């Protein structure tokens, strides 16, 4: 994995962590 992708991935999971903290008790999945 190149450096650019690693940075994108790190940004993604940092944002996800912050978002998930706010998501308690909300429905998150949508199976088609």
């Amino acid at each position, binding site marked *: *994995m190149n450096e650019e*992708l*690693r940075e*994108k*991935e*790190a940004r*993604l*999971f*940092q*944002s*996800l*962590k*912050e*978002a*998930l*903290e*706010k*998501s*308690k008790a*909300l*429905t*998150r*999945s*949508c*199976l*088609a």
Partner: protein
Amino acid sequence: MKGTAYDFFVQWHLTERCNLRCRHCYQAGTVSEMGYEEICRAVDNIRSAIQSWVTEYEMQMSPSFHFTGGEPFLRKDLFEILRYVRDCGFSVSLMSNGTLIDSNMACRIKEAGVNDVQISLDGIEATHDSLRGRGSYTRTLQGIGNLVDQGVEANINLTVCRINASQTARLVRLAEELGVSAIAFSRLVPTGRGKGLSDEALTGPEVASFYKELRKYKDNPKVVVTSRDPLAAIAGMDGEIPQAEMPIAGCAAGIFGVTITADGTIMPCRRMDLPVGNIKEVSFRELWAGSSVLWALRRREDYHGGCESCRYWAICRGCRAIALAYARASGHEDYLGPDPQCPYHCPL
């Protein structure tokens, strides 16, 4: 990570062969199928990505694999696949039309440690059979009964359109009688063969009316009555609307899971029919981190026509598959436009 788990899921269509030919199916044709060995390598590919997320970002994961088709019970190696995925430590679920689940099959499902089986049921008998074929209702109910008899958690998923939108009360009673754990309602996506039912799709006001009716069953004591539609959550929303840079609920596309089709094609959602790679050819970790389509689905500023200026964006984003289906019907390849059936837009 301390706090809420990242419930990442893979919805895997092991085959597109099916013993039914439903009028509203989002599938329109068939593709080649990956073999058992290829599937195991693909599972390893995904497992490696998830392990990286846990070790490098301390994500608290609860990943699950949901196998479907076509009709998944047409795969002769289904139980070998389930065993492999279970042995990798993942939760496994099935999504089926239920018609091939006799008592022996239900017993095998139980022994395989399947978490739950989602069965498609689309109305009372005449309605269901008009959509899925004569006699299918009876066989589906027998399949559900066999699962319940074996102690396998069964739940019902119903595709809502004008044909069945007035049957909620009867279907909730039926679900109670059958002993399933839940009955969930999803909107029709006019894609694949489902394009033929476009005129039966609910309008915005009809969606609002339907979900208002569904809210009456919020505290139903015998069976959970729910919807996985992002708009349904908005209909039941009270209190402060959570805001976040990244979506935290609602549509799963690009955030909480992916679909893999029988030939290995990866899509944000099966109903979107929008390939972003093939699991046989890419590193899943790199795809999840780098796909421009997945990133567009995650960024508010890339949306237009409604959702980008809505207070509900972080917990909804509408149904991206319905947005895309309507855009395609107008000749546009656009998955970031408005959900045309949304009655809840709330300006920032």
